[in-house]
């Protein structure tokens, strides 16, 4: 019997195939890391509009600094923060990137961010920035992050609907509730005055600030009393009871700008971050306007804080901190870059940025700029930080506000459990 005479694979051929295949793959990609001292990577999160504007601004930077090559990476917020920790551990984090206050202090705590103070006054000019923009990222003498925007909590409203029911002049908390209930009842069933703001942590911050307190005291404790939270939860329960605000079942389905009661026409007011009026307006026909939030009757201080919420940072592991610092400076101070970026990163961080933006702003953006400018006259320049654990506390408040709405907890019980959880989270 003869050996089958077929062209077969023997051991050696197989080895060739596997090694050759792997090598071919390797070579075909031809992406070797260049140890070029003047190439940096910039990273940010946002939507497509932000991506377009940032890439344009970076092109402006490289046109003026031909010796620095900038590569970019970007993703939506959630995915950006999925990828970032992996990159930090692998040493491939961008040489400068956008960082949100929600996570900033976790990174500062672990020593992952470079101290930018050696560059300040040299490569990075902070003289034009508003007070607080740099201070909020400071840790003793070290500056780990420089704010690139300033934003504040605001009340957006449907002009026609609010005018039909009353006015927002000298808005107090009681007046806000009366107006919301009036609008809600006037619209019949399934109509409400405002969205349910009880779970919005920054709105609670405003409420306690008006009482002369703050969200946090020091690095691991809350700065307000259970009584304040009980009053807050009580207030929103009274809103929900009389159609001032939607029941929690409706609120649960209203996540995302496109589902907000304001956009769907089931409410006339919405509390949010100042620049969001632009997003809401884009989804609506009726004209929106912006107003400061309610204050206690006879209060001297309206409690509104205005501060940087997003930052530019440079990782400690970056090999080109100097070039990265130059890019940070360019994005903060160059008039061309400021005009290109517009409001995509948030409200302006300096008068210079504000005046550049005022020239190009559309109607809703103009309203944001005016609102922030007015607010800046009153707001304290010291801007309290959100400490590590803030994100978890925010979702806790949201959950407890909903359980009060569903009748599963009294405001008192909800406030108690918030303080118990806060101890664990901040501990």
């Amino acid at each position, binding site marked *: 019997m003869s050996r089958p005479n077929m062209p*077969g694979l023997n051991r050696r051929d197989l080895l060739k195939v596997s090694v050759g295949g792997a090598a071919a*793959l390797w070579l075909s990609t031809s992406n070797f890391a260049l140890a070029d001292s003047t190439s940096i990577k910039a990273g940010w999160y946002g939507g497509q509009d932000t*991506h377009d504007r940032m890439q344009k601004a970076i092109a402006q930077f490289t046109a003026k600094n031909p010796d620095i090559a900038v590569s970019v990476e*970007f993703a939506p917020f959630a995915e950006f923060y999925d990828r970032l920790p992996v990159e930090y551990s692998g040493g491939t984090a961008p040489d400068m990137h956008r960082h949100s206050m929600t996570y900033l202090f976790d990174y500062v705590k672990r020593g992952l961010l470079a101290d930018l103070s050696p560059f300040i006054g040299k490569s990075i000019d902070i003289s034009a920035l508003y007070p607080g923009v740099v201070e909020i990222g400071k840790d003793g003498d070290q500056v780990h992050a420089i704010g690139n925007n300033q934003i504040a909590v605001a009340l957006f409203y449907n002009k026609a609907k609010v005018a039909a029911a009353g006015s927002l002049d000298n808005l107090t908390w009681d007046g806000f509730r009366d107006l919301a209930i009036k609008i809600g009842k006037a619209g019949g069933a399934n109509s409400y005055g405002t969205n349910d703001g009880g779970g919005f942590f920054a709105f609670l911050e405003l409420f306690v600030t008006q009482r002369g307190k703050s969200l946090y005291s020091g690095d691991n404790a809350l700065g307000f009393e259970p009584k304040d939270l009980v009053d807050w939860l009580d207030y929103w329960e009274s809103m929900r009871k009389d159609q001032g605000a939607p029941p929690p079942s409706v609120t649960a389905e209203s996540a995302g700008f496109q589902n907000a009661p304001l956009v769907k026409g089931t409410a006339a007011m919405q509390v949010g971050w100042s620049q969001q009026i*632009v997003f809401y307006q884009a989804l609506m026909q009726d004209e929106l306007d912006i107003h400061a939030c309610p204050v206690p009757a006879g209060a001297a201080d309206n409690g509104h804080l205005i501060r940087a919420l997003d930052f530019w940072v440079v990782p400690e592991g970056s090999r080109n901190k100097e070039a990265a610092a130059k890019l940070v400076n360019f994005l903060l101070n160059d008039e061309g870059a400021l005009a290109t970026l517009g409001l*995509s990163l948030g409200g302006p961080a300096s008068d210079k940025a504000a005046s550049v933006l005022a020239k190009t702003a559309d109607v809703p953006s103009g309203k944001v700029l005016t609102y922030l400018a007015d607010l800046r006259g009153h707001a304290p320049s010291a801007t309290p930080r959100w400490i590590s654990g803030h994100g978890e506390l925010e979702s806790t408040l949201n959950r407890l506000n909903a359980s009060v709405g569903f009748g599963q907890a009294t405001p008192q019980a909800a406030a108690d459990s918030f303080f118990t959880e806060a101890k664990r989270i901040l501990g």
Partner: protein
Amino acid sequence: MHPAKPNRLPATLLRHAILIALAILMSYPLLWMISSSFKPEHVIFSEPGLLPDPFTLTNYIAGWTKLGLPFAAFMLNSVIICVLCILGNLFSCTLAAYAFARLEFPFSKAAFAIMLLTIMLPFHVTVLPQYIMFQKLGAVNTIIPLVLPKFFAVDAFFVFLLVQFIRGIPRDLDQAAEIDGTNKYQTFWYIIFPLCRPALVIVAIFTFLWTWNDFFGQLIYLTQTQNYTASLALNLFIDATSGESAWGMLFAMSVVTLTPIFVLFVLFQRQLADGIATTGLKG
């Protein structure tokens, strides 16, 4: 006289009506997405109806180029990765399975058990060490980390599947080949590999599906837009925090992305069913 045949028609009609109604109910989300992809952005969430009115193709036309590159470029990236992964899995998993099923070598039982253990290990546990390794090799931001492992039989699930299948092939065939003078590799190449066809179809199709739909691995390893795959590109259309989401374009490009999978299922429906039946794969 035969007794009159009972009239089955009403029962059949009823059964079909129920099945069709259920099918429509199940596919409603898909139909909704397809319908929304033809609606202008501002009516997507305010008009719940399935018939797009007004009807528009803007989402497809604008979405195709919205991300700076034509969407085909991202689809091509996905296809390249998928094809290489399929080749890798077909090549390496069958060889590994053949070794486990037919050859006796030291510690083969222990090695098999260890391999099964890796099925339990979630990707997120190994992602950091793996990332650091590929970073040291300078392979981050290339497709190597996504494709190369497939040539080393890392998909233990497929190895296991093929081992079970090969064990079902009568050893008589191997022995007959051996008598004809084949060595182990030739037995594999001429006897086992062709007989594994139903299982190989399953391996190929599932590798395609899992790679095409993968998100996390691609997100971690591919950071530059020109390397993005279809699933990463789709993700760029929505950002929950900034309100800059382009839902219409997202739905339009999702339909485009789903089309290859849909075609694949239609073409390979029979092999898929056969494969699932013969390999004992369920779920």
